[in-house]
């Protein structure tokens, strides 16, 4: 046990799973000799060789497409897409094939594979390096979509994802890769997919987020806590299938809900949560469900990045408005 960053936790999960299971392979652009542009795959090629840690041509459709074939032929590929902004070159392979092969073959071919990619803004990078399009995957039936918010979950969820017989889109909040360290258990452990975590229980208002937004809602909850508002803070961890039960039970108690994501608001993940909770919990609601999100725009370059990005101040404002409704 030692304090480690999220990127280290991800790296450790890959090391441990590859060590334990010879059918796990890692592939992607710059994942081998370079160890990944964020170092998620550092040290793997030295340990497991070029056969199992594969530097690929610059071609996302191939990375996903070849992973499909590998999964059909008994391997468990963990593919890396360098940045979420580049996944669309391989989108057909994901939505038309990864998500469907099990159904298409009527159960004959599992798609036991993971597609990892860093998502989100906050690193002041070039265009296509700040995307947050998780809603597109969440809407695609046949996929699971997992987004950790801290090193401990990142390791446990990635291990679960690799072991999951179904395909998992594993979105890593690059902003958090090195932001904080957490005590990380040394052993190989699992964090369940599909289960949210109640980070802090509270009775006045429910605040839900995932990935990079979790530290932000924690901060906001702390802030309003000082004002006497007792917020329940939930980290979804999986957005498809999302843990509706946990959110719904929380809203039954609090009667108020704020959802936070950095992705564009319209037709985003927050909409589904709001719609479902509205359906199930209408009579519990003491105020409209509020969404704090990125705007319906292209994620801006560095100079305006922060203006688009939800922060704890914006969340606090939404909490105030919801409490005062």
């Amino acid at each position, binding site marked *: 046990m030692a304090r480690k960053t999220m990127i280290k936790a991800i790296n450790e999960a890959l090391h441990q799973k590859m060590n334990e299971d010879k059918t796990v*392979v890692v592939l992607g652009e710059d994942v081998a000799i370079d160890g990944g542009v964020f170092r998620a795959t550092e040290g793997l090629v030295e340990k497991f060789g070029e*056969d*199992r840690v594969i530097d*690929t*041509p610059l*071609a996302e*459709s*191939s990375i*996903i*497409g*070849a*992973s*499909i*074939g*590998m*999964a*059909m*032929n*008994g*391997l468990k*590929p963990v593919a890396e897409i360098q940045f979420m902004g580049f996944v669309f070159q391989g989108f*057909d*392979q994901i939505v*038309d*094939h990864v998500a469907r*092969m*099990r*159904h*298409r*073959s*009527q*159960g*004959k*071919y*599992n798609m036991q594979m993971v597609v990892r990619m860093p998502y989100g803004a906050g690193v002041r990078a070039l265009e296509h390096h700040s995307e947050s399009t998780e809603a597109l995957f969440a809407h695609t*039936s*046949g996929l*699971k979509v997992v987004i950790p918010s801290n090193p401990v979950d990142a390791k446990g969820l990635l291990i679960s994802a690799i072991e*999951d*017989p*179904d395909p998992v889109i594993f979105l890593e909040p690059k902003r958090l890769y090195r932001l904080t360290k957490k005590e990380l258990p040394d052993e190989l452990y699992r964090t369940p997919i*599909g289960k949210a975590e109640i980070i802090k229980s509270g009775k006045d208002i429910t605040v839900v987020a995932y990935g990079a937004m979790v530290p932000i809602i924690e901060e906001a909850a702390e802030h309003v806590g000082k004002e006497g508002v007792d917020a329940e803070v939930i980290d979804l961890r999986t957005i498809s*299938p999302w843990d*509706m*039960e946990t959110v719904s039970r929380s809203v039954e108690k609090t009667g108020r809900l704020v959802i936070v994501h950095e992705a564009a608001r319209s037709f985003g993940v927050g909409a589904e949560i709001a719609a479902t909770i509205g359906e199930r919990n209408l009579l519990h609601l003491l105020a409209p469900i509020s969404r704090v999100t990125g705007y319906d725009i292209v994620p801006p370059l560095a100079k305006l990045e922060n203006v688009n990005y939800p922060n704890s101040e914006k969340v606090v404002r939404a909490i105030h408005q919801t409490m005062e409704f």
Partner: protein
Amino acid sequence: MKSKLIQILDEKGNAVEKAIGDLTEKDILKMYRLMNLTRLWNNKALSLQRQGRMGTLASVRGQEASNIGMAMPLQESDWLVPAFREYGAMFTRGVSLSDQYMYWGGDERGARFPDNLNITPACITIGAHLLHAVGIAHAAKIKGEKIMVLSSSGDGSISQGDFHEALNWAGVFKLPVVFVIQNNHWAISMPVEKQTATETLAEKAAAYAIEGVRVDGNDVFAVYHTVKKYADRARNEHKSALIELVTYRMGDHTTADDATRYRKPEIIREWEKKDPIERLKKFLTTKHGWNEDKEQKMMAELTEQVENAVKEYENVDPPEPETMFQYMYSEMPWNLKAQLEEVKEFVKAGGK
């Protein structure tokens, strides 16, 4: 740069004896049976379709030699990765006639092939499955399996980015995959000349440093031997290849298409002279004592097989709503469970 066309059995049924190689009479008769079976299955499906008893069908007529010739050289542990106009190849490898009727009849259960058959389900999105073939071969290489993977796609597939990426990947990693293109001259209404500026499709192999060859796709001997040669090489030496089978789509693109809108019917008469079954029949007649008696007997047997398959297809219970849900995930998540309940309740309450 025009690659020459490999041919063994010409349009008149004459063969270059030596080139027939290790094919025994039994093998050849098997080919002949399978080609006829495929055509009968196809004709029956077309007529069922006209009667509203079958879904939209992509006819394989004219491509029987390509279909059977590419599948026969494969060993059991090899893989066939087809597009959708390959049911002749599927039958050759053991897919049942009735399953294919089910599939084309709109019943997903027909797409579940027996566990021991290394055949991937039909891939409708053009070109995408070439990358699956590559991945299967890549896994085989990693695992040290001595197998090869054969992908089949149409002339239209060569325009897709995935075609390029697949061949590039196979070239880079030296994978045991053979890419077969059934150049049937058409992608719906697009003649192959409008698909690309090169004279042949085989010559595209050069861009990936793999071998490319062009074969008379209506000559089952040439298809068989060429595929066998490159399949063996792939299996033994991990070398990839591109094989262009020059054939012809004798029917409409599918039953939803009307080819007279874009091609002259005369051309069909030209290609009828090159019919793959006719030529093999002539060869068998001249060289192996085939005659009308044998022909009729065989046709009666095959027709019965096809009719039985139709019966099976038409007598199977309709699929349960569950089947829409159950294969989406290994275990149904709450939303699917809830939705399946919705369906059941709706049906229970008399809903339609």
